[in-house]
């Protein structure tokens, strides 16, 4: 996402420049994008200040009432917090695990090719399927509690999805299980770009494995970190299927994400105005987070 280099090297006479009319090539993409995302987002930004119910042609402006009611509503605040917690925790956990796996598989172990394919497999699975699978695993009489019994840790048994805090953890476990392989593959590709000679030179100079990782490998992984963090963070902020299937947002409304609460409020209760207001709050949060992340990674250097 960097600026195109300002002074362009010209080769030949006029051969390097495209005619301006080539910008027409961008029209179909911009049209689809505007129809699906930009226009509805702008319209939504207006609806957020109305009492529109999604059906009627008329609506009244209600000022900030939708936003006031969101912050006065513990369920909505909880959904916002849950979304942020899910996005951040799964991003950090999946990236750490993914990086660890990538470093392990980048060694000379014999199983590395098979395991690379294996660890990535959960990332291609349909979230609906993994959500049902883990719903069963976390059930009171399910395999996880069975496993704890079998290894003599019965004291740790829980009604995982029946308890508000554990249910959120369970949802995050599913996401991390799926996304770690995603991160791993991105880091493995990044590690290919780290020249072996450089690492060997570091070893010759007496740098230990940790030092070599921190001073040589890590800076060269910066683009991989950017991509991986961005992809998993965006995934986390959107989370719907895992929550909807595993807990339905419950117990009570304790584990709703913004997507599940919006779905519930808008399409089951017709609260379109306040649902969009909630989404707008998310938009602002994403913009702020992205700006911070972009700055941080830019500052760290190595980002293209």
């Amino acid at each position, binding site marked *: 996402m960097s600026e*195109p280099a300002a002074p362009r090297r010209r*080769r030949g006479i006029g*051969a390097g*420049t495209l*005619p301006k009319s*080539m*910008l027409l*090539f*961008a029209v*179909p*993409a*911009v049209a*689809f*994008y505007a129809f*699906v*995302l*930009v*226009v*509805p987002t702008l319209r*939504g930004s207006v609806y957020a200040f109305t009492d529109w119910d999604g059906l009627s042609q008329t609506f009244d402006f209600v000022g900030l009432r939708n936003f006031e009611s969101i912050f006065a509503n513990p369920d909505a605040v909880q959904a916002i917090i849950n979304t942020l917690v899910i996005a951040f925790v799964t991003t950090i956990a999946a990236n750490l695990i993914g990086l660890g796996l990538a470093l*392990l598989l980048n*060694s*000379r*172990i*014999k*199983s590395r090719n098979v*395991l690379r*394919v*294996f660890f*990535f*497999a*959960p990332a291609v*699975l*349909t*979230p*609906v*399927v*993994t959500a*049902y*699978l883990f719903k*069963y*695993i976390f059930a009171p009489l399910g*395999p996880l509690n*069975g*496993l704890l019994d079998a290894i003599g840790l019965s004291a740790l048994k829980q009604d995982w999805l029946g308890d508000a805090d554990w249910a959120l953890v369970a949802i995050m476990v599913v996401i991390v299980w799926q996304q770690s392989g995603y991160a791993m593959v*991105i880091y493995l590709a990044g590690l290919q770009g780290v020249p072996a000679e450089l690492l060997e030179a570091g070893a010759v100079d007496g740098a230990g494995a940790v030092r070599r990782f921190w001073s040589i490998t890590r800076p060269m992984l910066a*683009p991989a970190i950017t*991509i991986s963090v*961005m992809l998993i963070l965006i995934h986390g902020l*959107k989370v719907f299927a895992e929550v909807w299937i595993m807990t339905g947002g419950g117990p009570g409304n304790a584990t709703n994400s*913004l997507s599940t609460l*919006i*779905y519930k409020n*808008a399409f089951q209760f017709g609260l379109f105005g306040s649902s*969009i207001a909630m*989404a707008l709050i*998310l*938009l602002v949060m*994403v913009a702020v987070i*992205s700006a911070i992340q972009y700055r941080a990674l830019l500052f760290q250097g190595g980002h293209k």
Partner: protein
Amino acid sequence: MNRYTWRTAVLEVVTLAIALVFAFPFYILVNLALRHANDQTSPLILTAQPTLDNFVSAWNEADLGSAILNSLMVTVLSVVIIVGISAMAAYPLVRLTWSLSRTAYWFVMVGLLLPFQVALIPLYVTIRDLGLLGTTWSLVLFYAGLQVPFSVFLYTGFLRAMPREYEEAAAVDGARPFTAFWRVVFPMMRPVTGTVVILNAIFVWNDFLTPLLYLSGSGSQTIPVALFGFVGEYAANWPIVFAGLIIGIAPILIVYFLLQKSVIQGFSGGLKG
């Protein structure tokens, strides 16, 4: 440094142990799908008398065949459109130094930050008013627009690092920009096209919320929604449910294992640039 030392052996054991933890859900999924519905032994214990009956019942009950066809159609159409419009758009956005081109680039990049939840409801109403609810076209339209920013981002990153010599040679030979793009530039972008295809295909195939909204009540369903409805009916019968889930993920897993190299390498395409 290149030999298989005892340290490598330790790493091997550690990695395999982690793999075992990751494999646990897969074991439960397959183990349960293979057992008779009235088999009450613990799901941890290997099924003693495996049967394939659950797969037959799930296939017949859940109408998974037509759901797979629907998913296939939506995925192929969406990905073809996404690739076509994003690759075309990226070319002038990178190669033109015109200020309007720069503005258009940033206009599209803003889409990376727009959470789709804001657009979701107004767009739903538009699609409803256009009478497209319940059609697979509504999904194709949605994915084509939604995935433009990310796909253009991947293409522009790749194009920036790509040498201009070939396009220039084509221009010198008198090829018009349109021809030069499809004949010279687009084939050279193959690695990143692979990435765009794979990431978008997986996303579209697996998406749940959009078809839940746009296809609800209609006869045609994609795989995730078909499984959702099916499990709703057979909630207590986990062996049949799990057999259905396996059928549901089989197509994508088969493609993944057949094309594992391309799928995994595809990701490195998104890193360059």
